[in-house]
């Protein structure tokens, strides 16, 4: 049954999520912004551009994939916002990150159900690559 408590719980969860999200997005946005003013980001871009080209992405977008994969979607969003990307590139990154994010924590949750960690991580990375390639081709 829907009561005032339902709304209160939703409001509380909303605030919690926004708080967690701020703690991740703001520092990452700041760090990437600082890196943008140093040669570091250019170096990353140079190293990763051959691989990222397969997905129609600039080399520095590798940062988004690494942050999203290891930390979570919020971290990836912080990095996306601080880079200059087209709508298509953001959609490609969104698809890839949706398949493979927060892998350390979520794999731990999945293995509790009894599926092998290697299988889960391999499967998710595969989907991220396949999804990224498809979106880049069709858009």
């Amino acid at each position: 049954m829907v009561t005032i408590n339902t709304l209160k719980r939703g409001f509380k969860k909303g605030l919690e999520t926004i708080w967690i999200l701020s703690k991740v997005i703001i520092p990452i946005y700041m760090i990437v912004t600082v890196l943008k003013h140093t040669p570091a980001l250019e170096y990353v871009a140079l190293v990763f551009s051959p691989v990222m080209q397969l997905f129609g992405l600039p080399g520095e977008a590798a940062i988004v994939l690494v942050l999203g994969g290891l930390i979570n979607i919020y971290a990836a969003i912080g990095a996306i916002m601080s880079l200059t990307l087209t709508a298509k590139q953001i959609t490609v990154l969104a698809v890839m990150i949706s398949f493979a994010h927060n892998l350390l924590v979520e794999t731990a949750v999945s293995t509790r159900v009894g599926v092998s960690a290697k299988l889960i991580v391999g499967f998710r990375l595969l989907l991220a690559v396949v999804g990224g390639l498809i979106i880049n081709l069709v858009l």
Partner: protein
Amino acid sequence: MFDTSLIEILKEGLNGGLSSVFGIALIVMPLMIFLEVARDMSLLDLLSKWTRPLTKALGINESSALPLAIGLIFGLAYGAGVIIQSANEGEMDDKSLILVSMFLACCHAVIEDTLLFVPVGANGWLLLGIRLVVAFVITALISKYVNFDAMKDGETECE
């Protein structure tokens, strides 16, 4: 080392970060309230009716429909919780257990995850569509071509 002063750069970063959070907060807040209302209105029975064709197509048993629906809407942790309960009650066979877990590991919390990327500039429908379709196709292929009895024998010997 820097082309402008560090203070200016940090200010730019803080402003950008704050406005990103604000844009997302506008979506997250109503969404969380909506999800709680949906839960208390027991919309889940309805949802598992929608996921039933999915379970059929994946070749898994019907009692997997509820964990699948919960995981897809509310997220991996909730889905896993329900899977563990169902497994303990013996409602799900090994094949269903593995396939539902795989599917949810790749595709979960689809409403929240999709809406998070929309204010950033992604195409939400495309994101949602490709996530569901790709996860479904690959899980279906595994369901068809992987020998689950062999997998099970490799992991547990006592049964």
